[in-house]
């Protein structure tokens, strides 16, 4: 998947909201990338943009979003329907609402299998489909899949629901799996299990994963590459370990620093001063400058370009781009 200079804008009653601005991102086959940032930074928007599930008042105002060689923004409806599921699949945050509450799990899984069969012009038999559904549930390490499959979503726990959703995704055999904070609503032990599961599945199926989260620790544990976003822009991008050890952008540094460590006594917890940027009228120049402890004069007037440094991509005048 290749995102080039993508911009997404929303029309709202309060004005035009630039949710994404000049985003560049490439995800190759089998790669796992984490999108990290605080709420409202645009990471979910990017995820939805990839599968064209943005709300009606959003538009792809600039740039291209190439998925498997085709621009998502200009795809026809039929292509989009085919793309969803087979090329890219997305799972969501809140387990309570992710599955259709009025249909049983087996019905919903069969829907997915049937849909895939239709798109690939493959034969469909209910018996076979049922077996496949059970098998996929086994693949996601669901204990006792035979009985789970006859239940309704409200009878399952959060962790079980997410597994079912992942299984559904696997049914579709996507090349890219986008996970939008799938573990934020789960408690810590379940979260660890689901993460471990996703890592294993990714290796088994050779899927690319885009993992959207606000939690750096989770991002680090599951992904090779990390993309830090702030106010609709990519501010830093690079190899996960590299970034956590040696973050370049002030925002990334602040994010990492604010995570409490259980090992050593850190003293007071650090936090990032100020509040999130107003997306209707974002700060001029570098969008982070009002909250940046290292802000320079140029930061408020010009927007820093993406520069390469030490193998990572940074959008900050501290590390280059400052040609005056």
């Amino acid at each position: 998947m290749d995102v080039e200079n993508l911009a997404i804008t929303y029309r709202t009653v309060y004005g035009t909201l630039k949710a994404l601005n000049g985003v560049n991102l490439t995800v190759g086959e089998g790669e796992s990338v984490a999108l990290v940032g605080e709420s409202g930074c645009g990471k979910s928007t990017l995820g939805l943009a990839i599968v064209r599930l943005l709300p009606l008042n959003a538009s792809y105002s600039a740039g291209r979003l190439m998925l498997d060689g085709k621009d998502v923004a200009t795809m026809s409806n039929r292509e989009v329907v085919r793309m969803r599921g087979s090329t890219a699949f997305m799972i969501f945050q809140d387990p309570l609402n992710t599955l259709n509450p009025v249909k049983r799990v087996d019905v919903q899984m069969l829907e997915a299998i049937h849909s895939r069969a239709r798109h690939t012009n493959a034969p469909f038999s209910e018996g076979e489909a049922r077996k496949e559904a059970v098998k996929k549930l086994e693949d996601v390490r669901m204990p006792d899949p035979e009985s789970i499959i006859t239940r309704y979503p409200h009878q399952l726990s959060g962790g079980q629901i997410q597994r079912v959703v992942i299984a559904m995704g696997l049914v579709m055999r996507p090349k890219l799996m986008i996970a939008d904070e799938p573990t934020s609503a789960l408690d810590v032990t379940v979260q660890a299990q689901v993460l471990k599961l996703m890592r294993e599945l990714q290796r088994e199926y050779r899927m690319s994963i885009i993992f959207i989260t606000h939690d750096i620790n989770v991002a680090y544990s599951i992904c090779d590459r990390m993309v830090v976003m702030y106010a609709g822009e990519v501010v830093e991008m690079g190899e996960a370990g590299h970034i956590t050890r040696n973050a370049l952008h002030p925002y990334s540094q602040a994010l990492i620093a604010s995570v409490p460590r259980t090992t050593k006594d850190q003293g007071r917890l650090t936090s990032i001063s100020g509040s999130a940027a107003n997306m209707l009228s974002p700060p001029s120049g570098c969008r982070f400058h009002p909250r940046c402890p290292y802000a320079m004069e140029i930061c408020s007037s010009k927007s820093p370009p993406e520069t390469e440094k030490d193998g990572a991509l940074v959008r900050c005048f501290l590390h280059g781009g400052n040609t005056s």
Partner: protein
Amino acid sequence: MVSNFGLFVVRRAINAAVTLVLLIALVFVLLHVLVPSPVAMARIITGNPRATPAILASIIKANDLDAPLYIQFYNYLIGILHGNFGTDTLYHVPELQEMQAYLPVTLELVVVGQIIGVLIGLYTGAIAAANRNRAPDYGMKALYLTTWSAPIFLVGFIMQLVVAYWLNLLPATGVVDPTLIPPPAVTGAPIIDALLAQNWVYFWSAVQHLILPAFAIAVIGFGLVTRLGRASMIDALDRDYVKLAYMKGLSKGKVVWGTAFRNAMIPIITLVALLFAFSVGGAVIIEDVFAYHGMGFFTVNAIYNDDYTAVLAFTVITGIAVIVANFVADILYAVADPRVRLT
């Protein structure tokens, strides 16, 4: 799974029964609060404002009007459960006998009217939701605003005026062409009876006479259904499981109607039950406007003639009908939404 549902039905049935008893109690209490003394009560029963004390006394004796209230209530309750709604003040026959010719007619009208209203409302609601904040949405909003705000008799009058009198498309009043011979009364509802007897002339006439009043009844509820349908649909379309449905590669039609609509419909069921009560009330007026001889007509006559027993009987019957409708709605709700069966 099955027993879960069965338990649910039983629980709801008990609930309904309790509410029914309470309802009858309420009517009883209201009656006795507003008509405090046995003498006043007796006066009501005779319907004769100039009854002599002797007559009143005999009535008090005959109906146990000076017995303690709880005994009277017990008698009343038992009476109703046996179908005894009192004796008509005017005609001095059991109320049930008076009413039974009219009940099925009104039931037919209200049920048909409601179905029409709900179907149209669901459709317009879904359209409004799909076209949120665009022209069709605003159009629908204007429509349901006016239909909801207009008094029921106005709706009836306008329909009668335009369709029946000015355009001459449908008959203006009555249940059926009076010159026709009615089919044997199996259910008492004209259209059903005609269907059963395959009396097509009668059937067609009855249908023609039903359309306008039924649509008037539909108008009563249509606004609310549209409103709730739209809101419910918008809410459903926003949910993650709709996005997931798209992710499974389902087409827009399948997602909107098969997934979102299916979920959005659930709260409508409760609304429909509520509307049923509303529609029965509205039927009283509509039947007056269209001279449609059902329970409404019966009640209006009772009001004009100060026939208190009849009015009370009508009230109790309506209450029973509404409670039954709510019970059915509860069951349907549980069928539609599996989450509810645990309660």
